[in-house]
């Protein structure tokens, strides 16, 4: 098998937090606590799971927006989690990001032209002033915005248009991987459809890999090749789209999918209603992290943490009910 574009090995990110106003003891938020996966060139991997389960933290670790606590992030065979600033520069070009909020992620004082020129200059991509101009107009064409919009400022655009500018800025660096963190979540239904279509077109045109973070499972199913389901800082199931949506195995994946209301009046649905709230990532439950809400919990779940096991050719599940399958890591 050829080398995956991105490999994440046992990634951990623990944020220190003050235990109390006067306490000297510090506690940790175990935001991401041992996560492993790979993304191939041109592939879309989606990260799904409840708010606060660590999806964005994984994304930010890959972008190296902070130093990780433990583990490895490997881009095209080269570690980037501890790369020196000089190597990191080129690495940064290859992984770009599109955030949820097009309003706050664009500098309101800059013209679109300058927003897009910045990464092109930073990474020394333009050979000349003419080349820069060619690149700028090509970017506008790619994201289907009028060329004259280059001279306007972000506040003059609608939410959907701003998200196109955000995508153009990511593309300007000629990346191989784009992290889309809830990139379409804030958009209206009809605008969302436009941006989803655009992302799919760009993927096939440029062979881009996407890490697609979203809580909208229908959009995920529409966009993705594979899905990793996270719960409280861990991956509980990872599988190709078909397996996740047709034959989910982890009780949390099943609950998540069953809870999505279908746009079909009268459809018979039996949502698995989970009791209780998401436990705190400061004191994650012992044993299986899902045991406080799992409808299938049994004694062993409260004391022993399940590991990811192969449940099919490309399907991995962390649940004691999968007993019997050989334990391994998904890179194996």
């Amino acid at each position, binding site marked *: 098998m050829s080398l995956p574009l991105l490999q994440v090995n046992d990634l951990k990110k623990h944020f220190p937090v003050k235990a109390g106003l006067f306490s000297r003891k510090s506690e940790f938020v175990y935001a991401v606590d041992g996560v492993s996966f790979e993304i191939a060139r041109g592939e879309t991997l989606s990260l799904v799971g409840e708010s606060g389960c660590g999806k964005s933290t994984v994304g930010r670790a890959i972008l190296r927006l902070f130093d990780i606590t433990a583990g490895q992030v490997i881009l095209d065979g080269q570690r980037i989690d501890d790369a020196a600033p000089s190597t990191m520069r080129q690495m940064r070009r290859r992984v770009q990001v599109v955030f949820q909020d097009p309003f706050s992620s664009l500098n309101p004082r800059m013209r679109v032209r300058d927003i897009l020129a910045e990464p092109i200059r930073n990474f020394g991509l333009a050979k000349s002033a003419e080349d820069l101009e060619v690149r700028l107009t090509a970017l506008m064409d790619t994201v289907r915005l009028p060329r004259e919009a280059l001279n306007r400022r972000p506040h003059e655009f609608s939410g959907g248009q701003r998200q196109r500018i955000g995508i153009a800025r990511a593309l300007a660096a000629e990346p191989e991987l784009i992290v889309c963190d809830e990139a379409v979540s804030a958009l209206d239904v009809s605008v*969302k459809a436009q941006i989803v279509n655009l992302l799919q077109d760009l993927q096939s045109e440029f062979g881009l890999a996407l890490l697609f973070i979203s809580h909208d499972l229908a959009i995920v199913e529409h966009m993705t090749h594979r899905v990793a389901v996270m719960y409280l800082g861990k991956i509980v199931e990872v599988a190709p789209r078909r397996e996740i949506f047709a034959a989910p195995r982890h009780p949390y994946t099943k609950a998540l999918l069953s809870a999505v209301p279908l746009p079909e009046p009268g459809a018979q649905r039996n949502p698995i209603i989970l009791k209780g709230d998401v436990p705190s990532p400061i004191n994650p439950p012992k044993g299986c992290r899902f045991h406080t809400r799992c409808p299938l919990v049994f004694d062993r779940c409260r004391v022993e943490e399940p590991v990811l096991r192969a449940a099919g050719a490309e399907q991995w599940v962390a649940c004691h009910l999968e007993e019997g399958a050989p334990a391994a890591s998904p890179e194996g």
Partner: protein
Amino acid sequence: MALLEVDNLQTHFRTPGGINRAVDGVSFHVNEGETLAIVGESGCGKSVTSMSLMRLIPEPPGRIAGSIRFAGKDLLKLSDREMRAIRGNDISMIFQEPMTSLNPVLTVGRQIRETLMIHQGLDKQAAEAHAIEMLTLVGIPEPGRRVREYPHQLSGGMRQRVMIAIALACNPKLLIADEPTTALDVTIQAQILKLMLDLKRRVGAAIILITHDLGVVAEIAERVMVMYAGRKVEEAPVAELFRSPRHPYTQGLLGAVPRLGSSLTGTARRLAEIPGQVPDLRKPIVGCVFAGRCALATDLCRQYAPGLEEKGPRHIAACHYSAKGAVAA
């Protein structure tokens, strides 16, 4: 007789750029115990409609005209004092962002208690007991402890449920829920939708549900009203609307959402896009409000606004060519 009858509601705002006709001549009704969903693009006037029903529009810059008859009374003719007695008692509202309607410096228990003391005349002890009961009912773990906590100590999902508890504490005849679950995870959303249905069954409340999630609409609404640019453009029973939408905007909306299971049934397809943008509500609109984005628009559409016409049993739509449109769906 309908519980709520809204006739020719017009809520306009004076702005520096001209009069914003946020809601421009909308009529609808809600029967006792019925759930009506309002859907439409952001900015189409859904929230302004619901805030008008509650008379929570700041006047000025806003101005409400038309009539809103609730249980026979015209709400627009009531004094502020009479309206306050109805709000939170006969009609309650769940707002999209719970922090804006919860008081950050009061414990959640006190907030529920005060609602009960003001509206139901309960004494402190009885109100406290009822507050804990309400929190249990909305599925909040350890309600006895939570009543003593402040809103910021709760998770987003819990705050939303506290608001729902407050909204339902007085067994309202009408509950208005403006995007009640948009900010929540699907698992919590499922709990809350179930709660709304339970409470409806228990006390027979009518619900006006505003949402852009068509899955939620299909799940709990009986009738749907589609708004576009401050107008009602279509209304039908929920199954009928999803099966045969008559307005091109509604058709576009239904085509723009992917369906869960699409990859399995082989129905995956490119999502339909509605090109263009909503018209500027500060400028007079001649002809059909949707003409600027409609693939079927003709000169007739651009000159004459279509009226709401009957297209089937209890099904109305405002389109000159809705028969043609239905074929295109």
